[in-house]
């Protein structure tokens, strides 16, 4: 076992983990943060996306020990003061989900896209979400939601 100290969603944790523990399993099973989900075995789907030191990563492809001393934000840490963050708010308003399984990862990646580029074009959004698969929506409303969250003009071809 290895001792790690990680700040997750603003709270400091110190825990013993097996080195082979994936970050996503640490978050879900040891911290009970089940908002972050696992959708594949190949690191293709992006459902498990969280932020590590403010940058998006696939938490199924990071070891918990690699996060030692670092800061993690999950979908559960986005809201502030009981208010929805603008990205999940836009997903809600634009009907950007059906089954919802891809949504936590999609939202975390959308936040990362907007961090890098506060006013992305439709194409830039699609490229930015390239590593996130959705099997339900056809992506259309997801892209629309990200544009809405960016404050982009509504109703443009998105």
């Amino acid at each position, binding site marked *: 076992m290895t001792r790690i100290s990680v700040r997750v969603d603003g709270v400091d944790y110190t825990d013993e983990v097996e080195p*082979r523990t994936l970050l996503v399993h640490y978050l879900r099973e040891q911290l009970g943060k089940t908002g972050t989900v696992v959708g594949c075995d190949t690191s*293709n789907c992006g459902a498990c996306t969280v932020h590590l030191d403010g940058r*998006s990563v696939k938490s199924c492809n990071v070891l918990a020990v690699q996060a030692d001393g670092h800061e993690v934000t999950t979908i559960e840490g986005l809201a502030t003061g009981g208010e929805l963050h603008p990205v999940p708010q836009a997903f809600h308003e634009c009907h950007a989900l059906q089954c919802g399984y891809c949504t936590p990862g999609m939202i975390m990646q959308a936040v990362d896209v907007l961090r890098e580029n506060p006013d992305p074009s439709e194409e830039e959004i699609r490229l930015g979400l390239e590593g996130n698969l959705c099997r339900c929506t056809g992506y259309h409303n997801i892209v629309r939601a990200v544009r809405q969250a960016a404050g982009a003009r509504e109703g443009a071809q998105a």
Partner: protein
Amino acid sequence: MIPAAFDYVAPTSLDEALQALGSGDDVKVIAGGQSLLPILRMRLNAPERLVDLGRIEELRGVSEEGDSLVIGAMTTYSDVLDSDLVRQHAALLHKAIREVADPQIRHRGTVGGALVHADPAGDVGAPALALDAELVVAGPGGERTVAAGDFFRDLFETAVGEGELLTRIRIPKHTGWGAHYEKFVRVAHQWSIVAVGATVRVDGRTIAEARVGLTNMGSTPLRATAVEQALVGKPATEEAVREACAAAAEGTNPPSDLNGDADYRRHLATVLTRRAVLTAAGA
């Protein structure tokens, strides 16, 4: 899926890392983990011990050394994309890395990890080759420098031996050279079926020098030297470039798989080389 159990050490200096690497038979380095962790999770490999390079500051970052750029092995793809030095002096590497995987993987994956992993469909090898990169390898006996042309040995096999580490990549500055990486895929977020990296120095309207690297046209990245030579002195026009690029598949040995057979890949190589060179030349 979960990897088999292993011991884990995270040294903070290169010397400690080399010691840790020599500490047993079945020791493996982990850099960004973006290729290694999927392999461990599928249990295609089960090392006894992992040495994590992620906490060694001296292996990270981009700097200048005379006429060369030096990129630490642990520099992530996204650090490279953020680097003005790389954009200015090694534009081809910048363009190619934009095409690697997706943003999440680019936040973790490293240039060194990509080169040592040496997947023939990986997008970093051909630009390293085309830019005449030198790779600095450290081992128990000290450091040695390997030319990119001697670095790639076979599928997933490089000049980095057991107990050794790739520490940095030195790239002669190609300041003012145009560059383009043309990657052919059928769906978003796919490995290259074939890709071509071209970088050219145009003098007036004439191609003065050209370098062309091919991805996934053999078990290692390849240089299209016949094309490079044919391009010199040619005008940067569609017709002249098309003619020079006809030889792009010469000396290659591309795989046949579900994405296309070898003949199809040879055809792709000529088309993609023409596109890459024309775009690089600004034509």
